[in-house]
């Protein structure tokens, strides 16, 4: 499935393109979010979501496993929970981190996301986009 990159404002009235894709997440209770945009980020070790989303999952974020994630802005405290990720017609079970300081709704990283897909970034096409192909490991 191909997803055109989504646009966002840049400095000086410019337009920037990012590999955002629509996803939905659910918690142990079965309650889920609406669709929101998450950034496909090969630099992220795992999947991270904003704690504001936890209300939809009826999740007590700080009851999760505490951990820390490092980013360009330094270290950030996170809490890890098992969740269900709905993406591109697929349903994945994974452990995801929740962060108060994540500046966007979600990051889809290597553990829990990239391990399930062959992902082709194609920024040179018009419009730029990415292709997701589900892979099933033996």
């Amino acid at each position: 499935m191909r997803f055109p990159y989504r646009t966002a404002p840049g400095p000086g009235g410019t337009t920037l393109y990012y590999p955002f894709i629509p996803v939905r997440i659910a918690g142990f209770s079965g309650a889920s979010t609406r669709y929101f945009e998450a950034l496909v980020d090969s630099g992220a070790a795992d999947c991270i979501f904003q704690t504001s989303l936890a209300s939809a999952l009826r999740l007590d974020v700080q009851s999760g496993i505490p951990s820390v994630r490092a980013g360009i802005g330094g270290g950030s405290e996170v809490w890890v929970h098992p969740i269900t990720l709905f993406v591109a017609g697929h349903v994945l079970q994974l452990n995801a981190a929740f962060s108060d300081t994540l500046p966007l709704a979600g990051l889809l990283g290597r553990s829990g996301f990239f391990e399930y897909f062959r992902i082709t970034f194609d920024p040179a096409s018009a419009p730029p986009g990415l292709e997701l192909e589900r892979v099933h490991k033996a």
Partner: protein
Amino acid sequence: MSDARTEALRNAPLDSWVALSADETRVVAVGTTYEEVSTALDRMGDTDSVILKTPAAWLPMAL
């Protein structure tokens, strides 16, 4: 569509949660939390909009 989306986001409040219409040309709900935006969409009977979080500033992202 992309230009309309970009302009809609440029005019949206920063460091907020927003819902974009299904065609991504208009901001249809704004809140300080995900729940506020989701509740607003519930009230409108809107099931098609997609939610995103705006950053504190529209700078190139490197996370």
